[in-house]
């Protein structure tokens, strides 16, 4: 077990490095560089050259990469090439915002989804299962920007209950923070829960078809007990994986929700970085996102192994 975790961490580090090279190369083959994007229509060859020299963009690519990697290893994220702000200051507040959003959504949606998924699996083909299936399928098919815009129209524009934009700052009281972030939270809970409910239900029903469950049915064990004691524990592996992927999505993929609610988070920052070809910024975001995936997947693997002893001794 210990060996496996160490192995996974090592593979994770290698993954991070490979991703950093891919992102670096990927961003640099895009048309235009930071100088051209920042100056846009008002660029001249002289100002472009001056900008490149002032920001170290005139160095060859591999040198820029080496400088970045050296800084990264020593904990220095560098300076944004587009605005001159230090990247740690750009990321700092947003990292907290993103973690707050992802954390609250996870705390609410994970138990909610697992419980609702369990209920749907316990009573398949009853009205409650049908309502849940219909509800989750509809919500999975509706894009998140639609849910978000729709909620803004109802709760902010028509009813005036909640603010249309999610401004949170450290000075706000608890109540203000909850009010300001209510709509993005609800939107994200709806989006991620629907998928997790369906996966929980499918995972459990899948296990329900295995011979050992049939055996316990024949022995006369009650269905609810079978599901909670036998099926659920065996289904934890796939469920935890879906949960991990959804949590990683909450950290890296909620750009639309961030845009609609003007919520300053990391996903939008990375898009801005790509649009301005700001390599160090893109890199720093990519490392955070990739790191999140690696950590969450290691955790979900560990959880799967803990819940299923058979996985501890792979053949």
């Amino acid at each position, binding site marked *: 077990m210990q060996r496996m975790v160490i192995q996974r961490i090592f593979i994770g580090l290698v993954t991070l490095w490979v991703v950093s090279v891919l992102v670096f190369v990927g961003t640099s083959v895009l048309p235009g560089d930071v100088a051209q994007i920042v*100056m846009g*229509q008002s*660029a001249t060859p002289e*100002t472009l050259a001056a900008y490149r020299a002032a920001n170290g963009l005139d160095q060859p690519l591999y040198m820029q990469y080496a400088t970045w990697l050296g800084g990264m290893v020593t904990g220095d994220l560098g300076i944004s090439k587009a*605005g001159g*702000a230090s990247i740690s200051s750009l990321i700092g507040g947003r990292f907290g915002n993103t973690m707050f959003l992802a954390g609250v959504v996870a705390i609410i949606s994970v138990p909610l989804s697992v419980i609702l998924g369990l209920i749907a699996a316990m009573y398949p083909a009853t009205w409650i299962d049908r309502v849940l299936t219909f509800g989750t399928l509809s919500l999975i098919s509706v894009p998140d920007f639609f849910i978000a815009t729709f909620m*803004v129209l109802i709760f*902010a524009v028509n009813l005036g209950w909640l603010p249309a934009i999610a401004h949170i700052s450290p000075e706000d009281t608890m109540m203000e923070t909850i009010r300001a972030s209510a709509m993005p939270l609800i939107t994200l809970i709806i989006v991620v829960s629907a998928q997790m409910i369906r996966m929980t239900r499918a995972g459990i029903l899948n296990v329900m078809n295995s011979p050992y469950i049939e055996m316990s049915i024949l022995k006369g064990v009650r269905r609810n007990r079978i599901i909670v004691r036998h099926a659920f524990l065996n289904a934890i592996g796939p469920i935890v994986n879906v949960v991990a992927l959804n949590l990683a999505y909450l950290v890296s993929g909620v750009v639309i929700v961030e845009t609609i609610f003007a919520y300053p988070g990391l996903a*939008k920052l990375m898009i801005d*970085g790509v649009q301005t070809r700001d390599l160090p910024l893109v890199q720093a975001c990519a490392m955070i996102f990739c790191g999140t995936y690696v950590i969450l997947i290691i955790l979900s693997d560990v959880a799967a192994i803990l819940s299923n002893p058979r996985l501890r001794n792979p053949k």
Partner: protein
Amino acid sequence: MTDSKKIMPTIDCVSSMDREAIKNGLSRGASRREVMGWLMAGGATIAAAGSIVSSATSAMAATPKKGGKITFASDLHGPSDTLDPGLGTSTIDYTRARTHYNGLTQFNDDTSTRPELAEEYSANANNTEWTFKLRKDVKFHDGSAFTADDVIYSMGRHYGDKSTSVAKTLVADVTEWVKVDNHTVKAVMAGPNGDLPKILATSNFKMVKDGTSEFQNPVGTGPFKLKSFQQGVRSEHVRFEDYWREGANADELEIFAITDKVARTSALLSGDIDLMQALDPKAVPQIEAADGVGIWSVASGAYIGIAMMSNSAPGNNPDFVLAMKYLQRREKIVRSILKGQGTVGNDQPINVAYGPDFCADLPIRDHDLDKAKFHLEKSGVTEAEIQVAEVAPGTTDICLLMQREAQKIGLTLNINKVPNDGYWGAVWMKTPINVTTWNMRPTANVMMNLAFAPTAPWNDSLWSNDRMGELLIESRAVTDMGLRHEMYCEMQKLIHDESGMIIPAHRNYLDAKSDKIEGITRMPLGSLGGYEWPEFAYRTDV
């Protein structure tokens, strides 16, 4: 001046109902010209109508209230947001610069200039030397006094190989900035330029403190002090109590962006923001139908253009260019695509917003399929491709309309939609036919010099005309207004007839605001009254 004003009719002379209508029209974005049109239709003379409109405008601005907070949402922000005036390129940068700094000169609503940090400025006889006398009562936010050294430092940042200033070409003809004494500076020019005060009134030439090299938390002289600033998140500003003028009306200002246009409009409708930049023309009816908000539309010289490069086929064929110009349905573009929030273009960059320099005698080139067909057949071109990015609202629709018209004369016009991302570096001026957009510039000369001078780096269609180059330089030294107008007319006609640019329409700056905010300027050089509002805007509900 004051005497003659007294005998003129004012807003109080008309009935209260008409008064409301005029004020309403003005605050909802009708231009001065439009309101005067209504009055004159009712029998008023030009002078009387003008006087009534002026008094209505000033009556509306007469009673600013102090206090409260004003929240402004722009359309774009990101890690490249900057408080360095020399690097500002977006509306949010310009607005913040206006909030935090002052210039030597300042724009009036009609784009003429008035003194700001320079209490007096004058040129020598042939416009080759400008002297600026500075105010002595100006303090920076840290309490230090503003002097000539700060001007020399601020202007010096626009010169030299290491300067990254985006506006350095505008002041390149000033060879030296001389400190005459502690409160006087002199600009020595390589050639005559009567427009220098206007150039210095633009955002990139705001005054920073001597020696400032770090712009995360700079000190300025402006009406607001910086409370917080996070790139791509927001900035907060509080009123500077030691300001040299009367000072800002609002206690606080919050500036950020909501990049999604639907979300931005919703935030205004729900009252979460007070001012929004860049209203989608399609959302005009929605704003007009809602209570408590209104559009803020200012006619300007900003334009959307289609550039046919003169260095490659088919743009190097004058008949093809003319055919394309005759295809434009200008009235329809303004009416249907810009939803009335624009004015008809005439294939040259100067329109009525530039005042006396506009050549009104140049007839508008009407939609004429017969002429278009004639020139197309003469050119022998049957197929062309145009690269389109939505550089300004309506650009794509204008090109689609053109495609439909082209079909009628047997021209296959292929439209290749390209992303905005990276457009200016990779597509603009690099492909045979592409689209462009320009904001209005402070003077007709600056505008034409930037985009149509034979040597201009941003000459969209690479149109090179020696006569144009001569006229641009000569007209700067001319002081006789009649001769000057003649020269400007000749330049506009040259562009209209010969350049590779189609300019089908000029777009208004179309923004929106809460009815609770008054005192917004109507300067046509940029969004929301040319970014001049932060010092003058006030809340009516405090």
